């Protein structure tokens, strides 16, 4: 489904600020895999997401989706297969546009955008139905500007917008980190439900160890641009936070250094 083949990426190559963001990172996902990613600051988690989505291009290596090399495609072309939710609740929606207008923009993912109207009777019905699945009453506020919504509501909407056109791959970049615990829980539950319902191939970066262990069927740990640990389905159910931290220390020879890490 998704194959990242020996991808390496440098920032500021050849300068004094040179930084190895990814080093021969290799990862293969099957249809329906849900992989959680943990790692210390600057481990390359976000770079990996940006390489997959096409924001960044690998210096060496290839990204394949469904067996096709997409390495040279820009982000807006890859977006037909990839849905993404960012950490910042402000990032995934347009604040000065209404809920239905935001959904109309998302509805056209990967299609050409012509001079037909974005919000019609027909699309409105689809939007209402999809919004009601979130269960937070947004279906009754479709004409409200998104800037008026709370962070949790915006993130739930972002999640819906990223997934309701059935992309093949879903990228979640610490999408619950900026929310208070109750809303984070709500968005986490929605994530689990949507990923399961749509059988999406998913990658999720998180700082919450407990969440990383609880969600998904696979887990990877990154450090200094490398994938240092892969935990597969059969072993993941036996994981605990202590064991995970122990593994990290053993492999990298240091303590997990992350000022934002949440042990759960």
């Amino acid at each position, binding site marked *: 489904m998704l194959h990242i083949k020996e991808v390496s990426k440098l920032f500021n190559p050849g300068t004094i600020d040179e930084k190895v963001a990814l080093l021969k990172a290799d990862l293969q996902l099957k249809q329906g895999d849900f992989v959680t990613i943990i790692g210390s600051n600057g481990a390359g988690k976000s770079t990996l997401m940006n390489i997959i*989505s096409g924001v960044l291009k690998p210096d060496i290596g290839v990204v394949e989706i469904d067996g096709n090399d997409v390495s040279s495609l820009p*982000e*807006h*072309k890859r*977006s*037909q297969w990839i*849905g*993404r939710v*960012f950490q910042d609740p*402000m*990032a*995934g*929606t*347009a*604040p*000065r*546009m209404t809920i239905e*207008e*935001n959904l*109309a*923009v*998302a509805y*056209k*993912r*990967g*299609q050409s*955008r*012509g*001079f*037909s*109207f*974005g*919000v019609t009777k027909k699309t409105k019905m689809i939007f209402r139905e999809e919004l009601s699945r979130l269960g937070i009453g947004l279906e009754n506020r479709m004409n409200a500007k998104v800037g008026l919504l709370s962070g949790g509501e915006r993130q739930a909407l972002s999640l819906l*917008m*990223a997934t309701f056109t059935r992309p093949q791959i879903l990228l979640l970049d610490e999408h619950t980190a900026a929310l208070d615990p109750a809303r984070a829980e709500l968005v986490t539950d929605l994530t689990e439900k949507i990923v399961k319902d749509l059988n999406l191939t998913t990658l999720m970066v998180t700082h919450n160890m407990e969440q990383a262990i609880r969600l998904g069927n696979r887990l990877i740990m990154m450090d200094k641009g490398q994938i240092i640990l892969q935990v597969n389905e059969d072993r993941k159910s036996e994981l605990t936070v202590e064991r995970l931290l122990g593994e990290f220390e053993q492999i990298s020879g240091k303590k997990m250094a992350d000022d934002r890490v949440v042990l759960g």
Partner: protein
Amino acid sequence: MLTSLLGAVESGLLYALMALGVYITYRVLDFPDLTVDGSFTTGAAIATVLTLNGTPPVLSLICSFIGGALAGLMTGLLHTKGKINGLLSGIIMMIALYSINLRIMGKPNVSLRGEANLFDGANVLLVGLIIAVGVKLLLDLFFKTNVGLSLRATGDNKRMIQSFGANTDRTTIIGVSLSNALVATSGGLIAFSTNQTNNNMGVGMIVIGLASVIIGEAIFGKSSIFRTTLAVVLGAIAYRLIYALALRVPGMDAQDMKLITAIIIVGALVIPTIRSAIQDKSVSRKRAAEVIEKVASKGGVS
């Protein structure tokens, strides 16, 4: 007095297209486009020269629209493909257009007196009203189409619309082209109504456009697209009215025009800021007083 105010409304309606153009770049796309100073004159020059050569005025005006769109296309390409800073791309096109406009006209001043005119036998007020309202309504419809929505999203949240597969280079170019097409059409209309074009008529046009947008939004609100475009049209008229009234202040004359414009726009920008600052202060004072009272009555913070 009444005649001059009526004249102000008339020209306000003709300048409304320019203000709507500035609204598209400045507000919707969040791209401060200075091409306007050049493309306004380009539109006037094309309309004038084509009409002098026997082209029907309506057709000349359509050519102004196309000419403005091409100027905007260039600015858009400079910014998106050439990666030149937005302000700078506009300035570069503005300066380039200065020479191009002179080439189109052949000399710095061209008169239309005695030639066919768009407003021959027509009521300028009525024609202006039909054009301004018509363009406003078309623009409202455009902003509801899928292209229009992605254009608005480009100005509102570029990262987001890119992640949904819209090519923001393309939407930016479309927006800047459409904007300058409207600006150039407005230039053509002004050429017909004043019967002449001169190479300096566009100088300061961007500031007048901004003033119209800001005054309009401040007075008439911006709760929806429909409301905002209406506010921009009314803002263009309001600007002309304020300007006409300012000219009547003893001691002011036509050479003070740019200064008056500057003062109007500073007023339109600063007054809302001061007003909201005062409001914020009074709200927080009131709320603080409430909290203090509550604490006092309960004998502790609840």
